[in-house]
C-alpha cells in the first residue's frame, strides 16, 4: 500500500487549501448544535470521536509509515478499562477517566510496539500490518470469552461521565467536549507534523533505512509516535464507551481497526484533516445508505470505497489538495522562496 505522489507538480503551491478546509469544518462544527436536532448532534459527537481514532491511524501510517491494523485495540481496551473503573469502583469523574483512557492506550501501544515494531531489524510493512491485526484479533477473542468483562455482551449500562457533580450527558455537553478533544489533539498533531520532527517522519516513511545513516535513531522515533497514537486512540475509546453507554468486544476488533484504515484512506492519508473528513463521510454514508437500501447497503458502500481508492488513492482530500501541499515543506521560517519555473521538467 504505497502512498502515491505526483512529482510533476514540483513547484511550490500557489495557494494552500488545507487551512481553509480546516477553518470551514471547525466553524461549522462550532455552531452546528444551534441548528441541528438532537439526533444529529449525537451523530456528530460520535463522528468526532471516531475522527479522533482515525487521526491516530493517520499519524502512524500517513506520517510514520507504520501500517497498524490495531488502533482499535487501544481504543477498545481503554473503553473496557474505564468501564470497569466506572462500574466496579464507582468513579465517573471525567478528570480521572479520560486520562486513564489515554494511559491505557499508552501502555498497550508500548507493549504492542515492543512485540511488533521495534527491534534490531526494520520490520516490513506487511509484518507490521499482520502483527497488529493479530494483536487486535487475539484480544477480541479473549474479551469474548472472559466473563469478568461480560464476554460477548460486554459491559452494558455505563453511567454518565461527571465533572464535579454535573453529569456530562450525551447531547450538547458531550458534543463540545468531544469537539474540544478533537481540536486539541489536532492542533498538537499539526504542530508536530510541521516541526522538524515532522521532517524526520517524512524521512522515515520515504526511506527509513537510509536516514539511520544520518544518525537518526529511527526506532525511538517510531516507538514514540506509535505510543502517541496509542494515547490518542485510548482517549477516543474512553469517550466512545461513555457516549454509547456500553463497551463490547466489537470495540477492539479487527473489524473496527480496518474500518479506521478505510476512513483515512478514503479521506486522504497524511493530511490529518483527511482522517476526520473520511470518518465523517463514511459514517454518514453508512447511515443514509442503510436507511435506503436495507439489504444491499454494505455492497454499495464497499463499491464506493473501492472506486475511490482505485481511482483516487489520495482520497477525497486529493480532489482539493496537491501532493506538494500534503507533504509540505519544513524549511525556512519565511518559506517565501519563489518557484524556479525553468526546471520543472523531470530529467
Amino acid at each position, binding site marked *: 500500500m504505497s502512498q502515491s505522489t505526483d512529482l510533476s507538480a514540483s513547484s511550490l503551491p500557489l495557494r494552500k487549501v488545507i487551512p481553509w478546509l480546516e477553518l470551514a469544518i471547525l466553524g461549522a462544527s462550532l455552531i452546528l448544535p444551534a441548528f441541528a436536532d*438532537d439526533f444529529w448532534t449525537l451523530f456528530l459527537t460520535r463522528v468526532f470521536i471516531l475522527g479522533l481514532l482515525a487521526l491516530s491511524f493517520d499519524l502512524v501510517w500517513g506520517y510514520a509509515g507504520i501500517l497498524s491494523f490495531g488502533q482499535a485495540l487501544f481504543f477498545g481496551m481503554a473503553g473496557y478499562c474505564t468501564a470497569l473503573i466506572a462500574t466496579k469502583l464507582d468513579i465517573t469523574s471525567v478528570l480521572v477517566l479520560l486520562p486513564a483512557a489515554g494511559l491505557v492506550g499508552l501502555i498497550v501501544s508500548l507493549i504492542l510496539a515492543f512485540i511488533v515494531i521495534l527491534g534490531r531489524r526494520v520490520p516490513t510493512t506487511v509484518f507490521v500490518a499482520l502483527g497488529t491485526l493479530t494483536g487486535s484479533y487475539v484480544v477480541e477473542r479473549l474479551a469474548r470469552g472472559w466473563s469478568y468483562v461480560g464476554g460477548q455482551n*460486554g459491559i452494558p449500562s455505563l453511567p454518565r461521565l461527571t465533572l464535579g457533580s454535573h453529569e456530562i450527558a450525551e447531547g450538547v455537553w458531550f458534543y463540545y467536549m468531544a469537539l474540544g478533544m478533537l481540536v486539541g489533539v489536532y492542533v498538537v498533531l499539526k504542530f508536530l507534523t510541521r516541526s522538524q520532527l515532522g521532517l524526520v517522519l517524512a524521512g522515515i516513511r520515504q526511506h527509513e533505512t537510509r536516514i539511520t545513516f544520518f544518525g537518526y535513531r529511527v526506532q525511538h522515533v517510531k516507538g514514540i509516535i506509535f505510543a502517541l497514537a496509542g494515547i490518542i486512540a485510548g482517549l477516543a475509546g474512553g469517550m466512545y464507551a461513555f457516549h*454509547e453507554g456500553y463497551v*463490547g468486544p*466489537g470495540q477492539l476488533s479487527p473489524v473496527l481497526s480496518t474500518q479506521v484504515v478505510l476512513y483515512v484512506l478514503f479521506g486522504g492519508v497524511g493530511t490529518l484533516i483527511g482522517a476526520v473528513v473520511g470518518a465523517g463521510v463514511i459514517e454518514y454514508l453508512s447511515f443514509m445508505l*442503510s436507511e435506503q437500501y436495507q*439489504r444491499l447497503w454494505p455492497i454499495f458502500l464497499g463499491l464506493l470505497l473501492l472506486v475511490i481508492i482505485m481511482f483516487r488513492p489520495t482520497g477525497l482530500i486529493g480532489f482539493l489538495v496537491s501532493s506538494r501541499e500534503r507533504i509540505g515543506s519544513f524549511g525556512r521560517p519565511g518559506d517565501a522562496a519563489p518557484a524556479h519555473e525553468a526546471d520543472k521538467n523531470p530529467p
Partner: protein
Amino acid sequence: MKNDDRSSRPLSASRRRFLQRTSLLTGTIALGGGSYLYNPKGVWAADPIKVGIATDLTGAISWGGIPNSQVAKMVIDQINQSGGLLGRPLQMILEDTATNEQLAVTKVRKLVTQDKVDVVFGGITSSMRNAIKDTIVNRGKTLYIYPQLYEGKECTPYLFCTGPTPAQQCDTFIPWLIKNGGKKFYLPSADYVWPHTLNAYARNVIVKNGGEVIGEEYFPVDHNEYSATVNKIMSSGVNVVFNTTIPPGVAAFFKQLNEAGFQKKGGRLACVYYDENALGITPAHEIEGLASCLDYFKAVNDPFGNQLQAEYGKLFGDKLLFTAGSGATGMYRGIKLWEAAVKEAKSVKREPVAAALDHAKISDGPGGGCEMVPGTRHVKMNMFTAVSKGGKYEIVEKSNGPVMPGECA
C-alpha cells in the same frame, strides 16, 4: 425518503390521501427494498402512536430479524384494522441493526431521539440487547421489550422480556429427558454467555432430578472437529446430549455424533433453540429423535396459532417461518401484551404503561395465552416439548399450565 412522513403534527387531508395511497403500496410489498416507515392505512383523526422495531435485517442474525420484523408488521396491521389503539393508529418504524452493535446504537438513537417512538421492540442476541438497552431505557427514557429466548438475569427497569428463560426451557424439559432418555447427560456447548448460563441452570435441574453430568465442553462457534467429544460420549454411556453448539459448528457435530451411532444405541439428542427453521440445517436422519423445548411449535396445532401461521404465510411466504427460535413468538407476545397495557393505562407514556405492563396478560397467542409475572418483567407461558420425526416436529408433552420464568424475583 419521504421527509414529510416524519412529522408528528396532525396530517392535512391531502397529505393523508397521499400517505394512504403510498402506504397501501408499502403494505402489499413484502419487507425489503422499500420504505422503512410503515404507515397506517386509511384515514385517521388522531396522530399515530410510534412503534420502533430494531432488529437484524442483515448480517449473521438476519434469519431471526426478518421473521421478527414480519410478525411485527402483521400484528401492527391487525391492530390498525381493528381500530388502532386508544383510537390512534400504530405507525411502525423499522431500523436494521445489521448484527453490528456499533451501528445499532446509532439506529436505536434515531428511533428514540429523532423519531421519538413510544416503545422499542427488538434485539435478538444478548450482545445486541446489551449494546442498545442503555440508549433506549436510560438515555432515551423509552420502554424496551426484548422478544427472544435468552440466558436470563436481565433485570433492568423498563426492559421487559417476552421470550423463554432457562427455567422455562429446563424445568419441565429435563425431567422429560431423564424419563425418555436417561440419567447421564453431556453438555457440548458454544463458547459464549448463553450456553454457559443455561448449562449452569440445567446442571442444577439435572442433579435435582437424579441425573448426572458426565461432561461439559465449550467450543468456538465455527469449530468442526468433534471426534474426541463424540468418543467420550459414546464410551461413557451418555444417555442425553444436551447440546448448545450453534451454527455453523452444530452441523458438523450432529453429523459426527450420528455417524458414531449415538441415536442407534438409544441416545437422546436435545437442543432448546432448535425450531422449525433449524430443522433444515442437517439431513433429517441425523436428528431423528431430537428433542426441543420451546414456547410454540407449529405442530402444537392450536387454532389460534394455526390462524396466525396462515396469515403470516399468506403475507410473507414460507422461506423464513414464524417460529419460536427466531423470537417471532416473543415479538407477537410482546406487542399484544403492550397493547393490553396501553389500553389499561389509557396512555402511551412510559410510567403508566410500564406499571400496567407489569401484570399484563393476553388470553390468546401462539401456544396459548400468557401473563407477565408482576415485579419481574418476565412472562409465564406454556412450554412444549417436541421431538423431530422424519424431519418434522411432533409434540410429546405440553406443560401443565404456564411455566414460571424464575427471573428477577
